[in-house]
């Protein structure tokens, strides 16, 4: 550990101002200026580091600068490295890394949109988060009030890359889709049936979530965190609580850690069941989806009996969970799991013995390992394309370090294997919950409430059912949040869909899209 940072000081004496581990396993490297290129290249070449996320913060009033934060993860290292690069108010720009790190293409553009800091040299510097018809505003600047009423927007002005050639045409889809799903716009360029390329336009559901966190009392902010992405309410809520707990040095009692772990895995089970059913449904195998829907209700009923909410809302709290479990509630877990385990294996058998279904899923929507690695793909989609990463194992939190589990990884990268990762993970989750329920410690379910000290920063990462969720918070005065940065795994993974659909037929797009099942709201916030 120390050698790594001595090395940084030695190699970049002019760039590095200080290195500090303010929170356990989170090392903040404060730089002298906005250019991180040399250090980032060093991290990647010498330490095989992966960029987790990049985001910015307006500290102009307090410190006279903006900060860019680059979060890195190194294989085999439990600690995160956070580069903190000051950007002077008078020269609001920073050198873009997107050309060599496509994984942060969107995130750098978000910084441009939210804070008006220019990513100099970005290969595609157009707006991403604010649509073209927005006025010239930067909502994440502190000088921009939350309640600002913007003038009515004019019609769409976005220019998509044109398509030329005989028999080549474009199909615009959305933002209102045919199914019961979230809004986004897809522009397919097609040559007959096969897709030449896909252009995405997101952020239709942008509702000012990160701005809403500013100055929000912590006890209310938890509920906002639960509404970042509705199918991951508990994961996002937990990620937020963990970040605050680390910033404020609140120790979560062991019982609460185990309870959270069980609920995190139940969220995964519920969504994986739904996805396996929906993937089969999207290739016309409706009966599988009917069984999955029925099975999902069993888990939702269990959720309700454990938390009062079918979708696990209103349970997680700073310092633990809001409600303790009685013995009969804990016993209900095993009863439900037994049914789910049996029913799910029947479901998988039904899907796998259907040749026509398998035929549609195999070799469909392939995401190659090299591409996945380059784009920084996370979670289920990454593990189906050979990326052996799982936050639960690599940066354990809650009770995960005390539970045995395997991380399924496949190289094929097609729809079939994104489904297989879910099938395998569901089995692992059931075993994890069993182990956690057996080990469930006695004791308090929540740490005593204490004031949250202001001016503390910390991040947390939770392996949601889709993949790696990251929250970063700065605490404010009076038990409030000053800044909460949210990175949903969907932000990383949208470009994977663009890669995966190329050369596939339009009719396979729904199932390819479903095999990733990304969150629009988590992306758009």
């Amino acid at each position, binding site marked *: 550990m120390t050698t790594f940072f001595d090395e940084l000081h030695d190699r970049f004496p002019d760039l590095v101002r200080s290195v500090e581990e303010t929170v356990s396993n989170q090392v903040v490297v404060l730089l002298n200026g906005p250019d991180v290129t040399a250090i980032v290249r060093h991290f990647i070449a010498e330490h095989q580091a992966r960029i987790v996320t990049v985001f910015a913060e307006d500290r102009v009033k307090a410190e006279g600068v903006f900060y860019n934060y680059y979060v890195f993860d190194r294989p085999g290292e439990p600690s995160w490295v956070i580069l903190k690069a000051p950007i002077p108010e008078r020269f609001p720009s920073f050198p873009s890394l997107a050309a060599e790190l496509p994984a942060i293409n969107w995130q750098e553009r978000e910084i441009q949109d939210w804070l008006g800091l220019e990513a100099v040299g970005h290969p595609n510097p157009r707006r991403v988060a604010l649509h073209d018809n927005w006025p010239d505003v930067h909502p994440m600047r502190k000088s921009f009030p939350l309640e600002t009423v913007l003038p009515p927007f004019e019609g769409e002005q976005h220019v998509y890359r044109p398509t030329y050639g005989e028999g080549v045409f474009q199909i615009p889809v959305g933002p209102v889709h045919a199914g019961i799903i979230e809004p986004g716009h897809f522009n397919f360029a097609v040559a007959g049936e096969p897709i030449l390329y896909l252009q995405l336009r997101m952020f239709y559901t942008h509702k000012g979530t990160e701005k*809403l966190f500013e100055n929000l009392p912590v006890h209310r902010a938890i509920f906002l965190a639960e509404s970042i992405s509705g199918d991951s*309410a508990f994961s996002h809520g937990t990620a937020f609580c963990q970040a605050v707990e680390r910033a404020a040095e609140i120790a979560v009692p062991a019982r609460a850690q185990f309870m959270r772990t069980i609920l995190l895995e139940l969220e995964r089970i519920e969504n994986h069941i739904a996805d396996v059913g929906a993937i089969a449904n999207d290739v016309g195998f409706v009966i599988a989806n009917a069984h999955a829907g029925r099975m*999902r209700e069993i888990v939702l009923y269990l959720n309700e009996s454990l938390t009062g909410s079918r979708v696990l809302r*209103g349970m997680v709290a700073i310092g633990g969970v809001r*409600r303790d479990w009685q013995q009969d509630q804990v016993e209900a877990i095993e009863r439900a799991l037994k049914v789910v385990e049996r029913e799910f294996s029947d479901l998988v058998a*039904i899907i796998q013995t259907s040749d026509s279904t398998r035929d549609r899923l195999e070799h469909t929507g392939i995401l190659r390992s090299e591409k996945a690695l380059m784009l920084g793909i996370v979670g289920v989609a990454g593990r189906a394309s050979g990326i052996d990463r799982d936050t639960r194992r690599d940066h354990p939190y809650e009770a995960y370090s005390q539970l045995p589990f395997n991380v399924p990884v496949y190289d094929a990268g097609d729809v079939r294997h994104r489904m297989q990762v879910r099938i395998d993970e569901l089995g692992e989750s059931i075993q994890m919950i069993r182990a956690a329920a057996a080990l469930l410690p006695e004791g308090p379910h929540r740490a005593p409430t204490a004031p949250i000290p202001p001016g503390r920063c910390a991040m947390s990462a939770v392996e949601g059912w889709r993949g790696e969720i990251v929250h970063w918070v700065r605490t404010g005065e009076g038990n409030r949040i000053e800044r909460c940065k949210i990175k949903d795994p969907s932000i990383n993974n949208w470009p994977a869909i663009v890669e995966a659909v190329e050369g596939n037929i339009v009719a396979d797009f729904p199932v390819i899209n479903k095999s990733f099942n990304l969150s629009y709201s988590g992306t*758009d916030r």
Partner: protein
Amino acid sequence: MFKILQKSFKVGSATADYPAISPRLAEQFRGCPEFDFEAWSDARPAAEACPTGAIALHDKNGLRQVTVDYGRCIFCGECEAASADGAVRMTRKFELAASDRRDLVLTAEYALRPDGTHDALQASASGSLLEEPVKRVAESIQSLLGRSLSIRQVDAGSCNGCEQEIVALNNPVHDIERFGIHFVASPRHADMLLVTGPVTRNMELALRKTWAATPDPKIVVAVGACGISGGIFGANYASLGGVDAVIPVDVYIPGCPPRPEALLHGILLAVGYQARVRTSL
């Protein structure tokens, strides 16, 4: 093939017969909170705890106006936990759909003691169901279509929580098709728009266009705290608030998200299928 049929026979029917039979609710299920206005000695802790502003206070000249808005409530239970006097109690009620936005709002007025606690309850009011507007639309829909209804769901900016429960309406347990109700892929085929919110500025145009593309007569149902009022997001630089800020709404379904039975209750209420209607909160 044989295996598939065998499985289906083994499972049998999974459908729950709501609304004829009350749904199976877990003992711990949280419905909406209930307020004993007579016994409520201090509304401040509950208002402070409420994450969405569903409980709002207005103090003036020694009087306190308390407003409780079920159109903002997310059923989190924090008001109950914060109120030491036991006047706020979480219930298992979830059939809350209303055709008039005002029916979701309760008010009470208290004289105040010097320490800010309540002295005497001066007045309280709860909304009552005005069935007429819904019934009218329902009759015209029914005369046109009998008992068949086509729904186009529109996500105008939600977190996807409501969509999860709307999707569940199609599973064999809730099976909305047994009422002749089905979800369609285009607003041009729809009789009803089932809209979740908050309506974002980026979705405003799409929502207006979808509404315009839906043939008359049409019903609009706003789903969830965010669809009704903007919920925890409210109105801000990126959000316009509830659905009725953009298009006219016929029925409001509270919840965060509303459970499938609550959605069914609201949809059936909107089409006048159900005789059993809520008369007051």
